[in-house]
């Protein structure tokens, strides 16, 4: 997002204190108009008898409701309707800043001769996308609804699943110029009060002019901005969000964004998918293990290959070594460059295809995958084995349920490749150590990122990490633990009579 040089507008304190002038309707209207920089979509509607006018921002107000609840009664019974309205409305404001704020939220302002204050009538317009399945978090078995850009609808999706009075919502307005509405949701008494307080403190201490997206908030909240690992999880899936709420985590929505920000999050959450819980536990566990293997492959495989062909070719038995070496014979590039070139090509293809309309992106896929893949080998620029290695790495990195994390892993692969080409296995071991030390070091809102392994939190906590053990073997909430007097038998909960 580029920035043009901006003017010197600062939302100052004087603005906020300005009161509606005492005087004729006209004066007050022009005051509001000035406040709104004389914008042309600010509509002023006067009634014939001159006793009142309404002012609203055309684009934010729903004309049908305005017509039905205000115009029609006014035209039909005139003064009487007005009087009734003035008497019944409690929202009367004189502060111009607050009037402006209401108008920007979709209110219409009624100014009358007799009444000094402005009367606020809520008639907000809202156009919404319908609830759809999020594109980048599709599941096979599981609910197919997703969050949308409106936080109210998102809250509905949560409340529909979680009918519990302890579900607590807090609103913040952030961004001095954008006045973006931020919603924080958590389960009272399940979420640790310490966490909630910390999150609230951070949210309210954010001091920025603008806030466009969840990514902005994420950046302002996280503790380790230099880390490669995402420290919050962004999801568009309500089922996922609900399960995290029940684990005592906090969800943050930003108006105008379909993504929910979940914090604090741990490393292993990125390897869990809602699908795991909808399949049988053995299958779910199997996929968990596959995904964790994919983590290792995604960050290490090219590095291991580079280390082997550059330093430790004796690790391979003679048969495999021969076929690897033969394919390397005519390749002019050193293995590191080969790997870097192929990884870069892969990222290029991905980046090129990702935003194109699908028919074109298919072409890119064919050109990229088939043509470049085979041509590069036939031209002997890159060896066969390297293509296999890079292909496997890419697939492994795409196997993480959260796309963002897979990208982190591919980026993480680069330094490990460099270390491998400089120091062989020793370099890989040192780099992996650094990565895991880093994982042990980082914390989100004071919760260790690599929990439950660093620190190790007992065997109860790992039942849902490496494996997806059946629900009756896992005590989910701490409340369960207290009541868990019944010991389930090993083979299922229901015994044959």
């Amino acid at each position, binding site marked *: 997002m580029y920035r043009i040089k901006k003017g010197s507008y600062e939302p100052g304190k004087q603005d906020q204190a300005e009161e509606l002038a005492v005087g004729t309707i006209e004066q007050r209207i022009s005051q509001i108009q000035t406040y709104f920089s004389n914008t042309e979509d600010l509509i002023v509607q006067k009634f014939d008898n001159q006793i009142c006018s309404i002012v609203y921002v055309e684009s934010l107000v729903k004309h049908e409701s305005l017509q039905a609840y205000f115009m029609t009664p006014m035209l039909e019974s005139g003064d009487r309707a007005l009087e009734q309205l003035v008497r019944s409305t409690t929202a009367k404001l004189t502060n111009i800043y607050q009037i402006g704020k209401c108008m920007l939220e979709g209110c219409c302002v009624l100014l009358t001769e007799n009444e000094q204050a402005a009367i606020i009538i809520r008639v907000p317009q809202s156009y919404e996308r319908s609830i759809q399945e999020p594109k980048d978090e599709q599941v096979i078995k599981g609910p197919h609804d997703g969050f949308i850009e409106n936080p109210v609808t998102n809250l509905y999706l949560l409340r529909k699943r979680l009918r519990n009075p302890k579900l607590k919502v807090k609103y913040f307005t952030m961004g001095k110029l954008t006045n973006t509405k931020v919603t924080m949701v958590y389960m009272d008494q399940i979420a640790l009060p310490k966490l909630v307080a910390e999150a609230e403190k951070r949210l309210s201490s954010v001091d920025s002019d603008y806030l466009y997206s969840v990514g902005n908030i994420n950046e302002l909240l996280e503790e380790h901005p230099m880390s490669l690992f995402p420290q919050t999880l962004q999801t568009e899936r309500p089922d996922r969000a609900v399960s995290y709420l029940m684990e005592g985590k906090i969800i943050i929505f930003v108006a105008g964004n379909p993504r929910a920000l979940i914090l604090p999050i741990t490393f292993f959450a990125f390897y869990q998918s809602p699908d795991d819980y909808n399949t049988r536990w053995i299958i779910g566990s199997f996929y968990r293990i596959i995904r964790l293997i994919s983590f290792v492959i995604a960050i290490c495989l090219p590095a291991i290959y580079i280390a082997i062909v550059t330093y430790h070719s004796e*690790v*391979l038995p003679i048969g495999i070594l021969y076929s690897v070496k033969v394919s390397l014979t005519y390749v002019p590039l050193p293995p590191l460059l080969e790997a870097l070139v192929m990884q870069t090509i892969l990222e290029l293809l991905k980046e090129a295809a990702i935003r194109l309309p699908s028919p074109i992106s298919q072409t890119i896929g064919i050109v990229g995958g088939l043509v470049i893949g085979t041509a590069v080998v036939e031209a002997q620029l890159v060896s066969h084995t390297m293509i296999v290695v890079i292909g496997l790495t890419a697939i492994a990195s795409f196997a993480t349920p959260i796309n963002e994390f897979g990208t982190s892993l591919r980026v993480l692969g680069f330094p490990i490749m460099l270390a491998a080409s400089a120091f*062989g296995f*020793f370099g890989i071991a040192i780099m992996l150590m650094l990565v895991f030390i880093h994982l042990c*070091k980082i914390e989100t809102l004071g919760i260790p990122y690599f929990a439950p392994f660093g620190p190790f939190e007992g065997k109860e906590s790992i039942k849902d990490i490496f494996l997806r053990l059946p629900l009756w073997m896992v005590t989910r909430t701490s409340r369960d633990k207290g009541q868990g007097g019944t010991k389930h038998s090993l083979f299922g909960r229901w015994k044959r009579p």
Partner: protein
Amino acid sequence: MNSTIDRTQLLFLIIKTQIGIGLLSLPAEIQSSAKSDSWISVLVAGTVIQFILLVYWLLLRKFPNDNLSAITVRMLGPYIGRAINAVYYAFFVFIAAYASTLYVELVKNWMLPLTPGWILLLLIIGTSLYLAYDNLRVIARFFVLSSALFIVLIMISILTFSNNVHVSNIMPIGQTGVLQILNGSEKTFFSMLGFEVTLFYFSQVQGNRKGMFKVISLANLFVTLFYTYFVFICLIGFSPDALGHMNEPVLYILKGLSYQLFDRIDLIFLTIWIIPMTVTIVSYLCVAGKSLTTSQSAYQKLVLFSGAAVFAIGWYLSKLESLEPFNKWLEKAYFIMIAAVPLLLWLGSFLTTAGAKAEST
């Protein structure tokens, strides 16, 4: 420094500090004295360490919230106490430097013969500093996490049973004589160093001190058995003659293994072993930092300084023709520091408490 650890973390902190570079060459070293009874030597060394741990326990029980450096200051006054702590600091730095020199040599011999030693040293110390710089809780997390690798190491070592195994090599048990076995255990003792970190980590464990001796003993038991096991597989895997001539028998024993997908299991084993070796240095850096400082910010500065010192000393040591004289001197003096001094402190604690009581009455 209020960072606290739990018992499991203490257990692994001790274990991981103890198991490091020493084990790889141990079977060859004791071969010259204890021969086929080397494994008994290891058990004897373990028993000796158990006695020293008992002394530690008795001492630490008297001062449940102090680590060794606080205890010396408390008992001997600020001047003598700090002087002794400085000596401890110097020893820890030397041990770390010595270990990293051996480590670099090993990596050079087995993996990267052409890479200059100082680059390896820099990488090792840099990585160690990255971890040691943080508080003990984070260090403990990584220690526990990396302990999972012991399972892999043991599984790899089981593969060696597919070699030709001669259990008869250790028969008849006890043939070399008591003196030789004791001689062997002296050598073993110095490759099992690391239990002394108990003196510093113990006070940071949360909860009451009941049953803590069990935790320490368990660590010692694990390490002793781990060592005995590796010495044992080397004894039955190699002929006595060959064993005496190797530098790192634990690696050689894996070298012969060959599978359809891998050769040279020893390289894979060594790659994993790099982690325990580095972690040992981390632990010494941490203990060195704790021996002189109490606040976290001072600790961090001191750790950085110790890292530089370890690098300088390590570089100097790697230039020496032979480490033998240095080694001899270091071991003797270090033994006094970690066994005799705590014992004296414990005995002294009776005097001071008696004295304090006498004064109060």
